């Protein structure tokens, strides 16, 4: 039975439980001649909740943990001799898992019976060809040790899946019986079900915490693995980034940091003045007709996915800058450059800055404007000398939020900035950023346990820390500012 069938059965039981609980509540009330404390529907609801929630929770947790536990027990049984030199145990486990999946397919197609499989030996049967016939391609011939491990993996998986199904169904049925039997007129079913639902609501709000824990945990864990293989000082202080497939790479983080900062700087240099001016113009000058047209148009820019901006950089802005500016001035011949990515990212950030600034400018009390006009100041003088200074903390907050988005932006730089890590001042040269390298190191073909792949987690961690600090700082400033006028 697959997990989806189990889920359907449990849900079916819950629905049945609802109606049975409702009926039983009515029946007991008639029999005992007592008025029910709660409406019959609440009795049904309590039963349904007790049937569905614990059983589904158990199933979810089991599905989450089962592969990890099985893998741990099998992996311990593979002798060190079976692990190839320079390879990792985890890679052998990948093979074991693939072979086990393949064997399941072979059985499912009915070519081999269970008994034949138990007798099958990798030294006598050509397992690789057998598996290839069901579409599981293996890189090399199967060694007997790995094959035995795969068979054991399969049998443990089958047993645990069976136990899992039984356990889930027993839980569901057990809770069904227990909650049906305790139904009596005086049972406070409404209170019970409401407490249950409150607990569920609280559990849902924990998902946010779990996500953060998951992010920090996985980043830290893999980064520690990385720093065990590669000295942290070299990572943070070296100025060469030169990953090699065969090890011996230079993984200096500074060129990536430079590229990130440079691209973000260009983007903010475009987005902040333009975004701010748009917000000021629309808030203070524009007539209602221009406002009603321009505001949504700028907001559309905010809803466009970044891949669209990336394509825009790749096919339009990049070639344009190369042919009309970089080449005539002799500054470079590459269509992907810091300028390309920066300008396009700037366009992406314009609506972000302008809508944040708009809120902030509107939050400045009208009395301050009136006071300034009363002294005879022109509109622009009022804006420059009264509104902007009053709104400054908020604008700094918006700037920091935009900077954090610029640093974390991926698709525009992947498609617009290039992939060569260098420390250079020329904005028409291709440079690379932290996010580009995370993508290229994790989508490449290098094996997972190598420093070349794990460096992506260290990069991810630095990125996470940077953006987190910027966000917290920005939120702090914005909050503090808001308190001033409210």
């Amino acid at each position, binding site marked *: 039975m697959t997990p989806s069938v189990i889920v359907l059965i449990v849900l079916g039981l819950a629905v049945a439980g609802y109606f049975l609980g409702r009926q039983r509540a009515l029946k007991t009330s008639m029999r005992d001649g007592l008025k029910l404390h709660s409406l019959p529907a609440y009795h049904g609801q309590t039963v349904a909740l007790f049937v569905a929630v614990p059983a589904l929770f158990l199933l979810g947790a089991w599905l989450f943990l089962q592969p990890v536990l099985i893998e741990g027990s099998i992996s311990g049984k593979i002798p060190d001799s079976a692990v190839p030199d320079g390879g990792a145990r985890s890679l052998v486990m990948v093979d074991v898992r693939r072979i086990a999946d393949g064997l399941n397919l072979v059985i499912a197609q009915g070519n081999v019976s269970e008994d034949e499989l138990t007798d099958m030996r990798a030294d006598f049967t050509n397992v690789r060809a057998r598996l290839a016939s069901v579409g599981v391609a293996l890189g090399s011939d199967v060694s007997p040790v790995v094959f035995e491990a795969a068979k054991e993996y399969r049998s443990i998986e089958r047993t645990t899946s069976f136990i899992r199904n039984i356990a889930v169904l027993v839980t569901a049925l057990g809770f069904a019986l227990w909650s049906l039997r305790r139904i009596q007129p005086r049972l406070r079913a409404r209170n019970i079900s409401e407490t249950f639902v409150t607990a569920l609501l609280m559990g849902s709000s924990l998902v946010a915490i779990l996500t953060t824990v998951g992010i920090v945990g996985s980043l830290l864990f893999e980064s520690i693995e990385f720093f065990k293989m590669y000295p942290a000082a070299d990572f943070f202080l070296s100025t060469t980034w030169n990953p090699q497939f065969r090890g011996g790479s230079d993984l200096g983080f500074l060129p990536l940091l430079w590229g990130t900062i440079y691209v973000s700087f260009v983007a903010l240099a475009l987005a902040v003045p333009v975004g701010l*001016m748009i917000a000021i113009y629309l808030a203070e000058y524009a007539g209602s007709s221009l406002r009603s047209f321009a505001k949504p148009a700028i907001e559309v820019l905010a809803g466009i996915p970044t891949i669209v901006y990336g394509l825009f950089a790749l096919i339009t802005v990049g070639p344009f800058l190369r042919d009309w500016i970089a080449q005539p001035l002799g500054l470079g011949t590459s269509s992907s450059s810091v300028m390309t990515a920066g300008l396009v990212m700037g366009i992406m950030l314009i609506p972000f800055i302008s809508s944040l600034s708009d809120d902030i400018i509107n939050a400045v009390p009208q009395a301050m404007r009136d006071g300034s006009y009363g002294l005879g100041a022109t509109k622009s003088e009022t804006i420059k000398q009264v509104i902007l200074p009053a709104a400054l903390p908020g604008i700094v907050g918006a700037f920091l939020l935009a900077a954090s988005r610029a640093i974390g932006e991926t698709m525009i730089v992947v498609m617009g900035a290039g992939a060569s890590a260098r420390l250079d001042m020329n904005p028409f040269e291709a440079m690379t950023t932290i996010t580009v390298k995370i993508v290229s190191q994790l989508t490449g073909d290098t094996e997972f346990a190598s420093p070349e792949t794990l460096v992506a987690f260290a990069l991810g961690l630095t990125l996470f820390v940077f953006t987190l600090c910027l966000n917290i700082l920005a939120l702090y400033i914005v909050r503090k500012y808001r308190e001033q006028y409210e």
Partner: protein
Amino acid sequence: MTEATADSPAATGSTKSGSLFKAGARTRKRHASERRFRLMGLSAVIFGILALVGLMTSILSNGLSSFQQTYVTMDVFLDPAKLDKGGNLDPADLEKITTFTIQPLIQTAMQKTLEELGIAAEGVNAKQAFDLISKEAPGELRRYILADPTRIGKTVSFDLLASGRIDGYYKGRVTMESAALDSNVSPEQLMLADKLKQAGILEARFNWSFFTAPDASDTRPEAAGLGVAILGSAYMMMIVLVLALPIGVAASIYLEEFAPQNRWTDLIEVNISNLAAVPSIVFGILGLAIFINFVGLPQSAPIVGGLVLTLMTLPTIIIATRSALKAVPPSINDAALGIGASKMQAIFHHILPLAAPGILTGTIIGLAQALGETAPLLLIGMVAFVREYPGAPPEGFFDPASALPVQVYNWTQRGDPAFVERASGAIIVLLIFLVIMNAVAILLRRRFERRW
């Protein structure tokens, strides 16, 4: 006091600068600076709008042509001597038909058509004339034959996909000059294509297969379609909707209505606002480390993409739901509690239904964001080349699939310029979906929005 003011140096100074009706030098300067400032503001607005227009024009001008595709319609004789040597339509034998068996059939058909129409193919031999047809066409013909083997022995009129270069010639991507330098196509072949077009057997049609066909290999841009990507994106949206909506609404109700004011609640709130600003690529790393490496879910599967996008969408939905709940006036809650409803009843029977339009709007906007998200999907292996359609859900959630934005990225990484057209076309499809979703959100808001 008033007299003192009248005699003050400032007052006398202002009368010196001349008439009240004539602006002084300083006033003119100040007004000029006012105009300059105003102009700067206007040009910023114009720049923003121009950027939007430029972006759209660039995508549309590159991508609209992908909705048209060039086909060559020819009568192909399905020769039983070659296709069905046993002569008994045995399925086992038919399975052995390969594209190599079919190629000569098309080649013969091409020659015959040219002879019948009296087209002299100067400088083009039979092989080169056959190269006008896409390499994908024999495969399509093979599927057509296998779908109904009784067609063998008949002459069928079949729409054969033209090769990418020929297609590009009619879209302005390939010219006579560029063809002279191109090893894949010659000017003579283009001239032959022109003659076929005059004879009416080569024509451009609406490209339905762009929406239904799977991706194609690097050398066959003309056959590449979005079928698998659209299906994969749809699966992921289903997962996001089913998981993120209930969890997000439940979390918002707890935080808005039940949570006590303490450090724990503060921690959750700070967490949510920070998660909303975490770079999307970090969620991809999370998906790779937890869902793929730790739990062992398959790579490139919609389930992993769906889970990652769910975690990304949750903060958006929670923030939208909380403001929708806040917008319901407290008097409704008070009235419900006053006539004896429990807190839970007040929320689920009264507040939640009133907040539903706001929640739905927020959810749709969150889904639209998730639909366009690319970076995290790259890390969980959705960039893989997938030609098989995923199965029906729920098992299909575990099959490899692609996603619309990732397909765009994938195509931009390929050499043939025809893929740029495909990528822009895919963007148009993506934007159409987004426009529809946002329009629904706006309509919902307009239709059900209440002001108290």
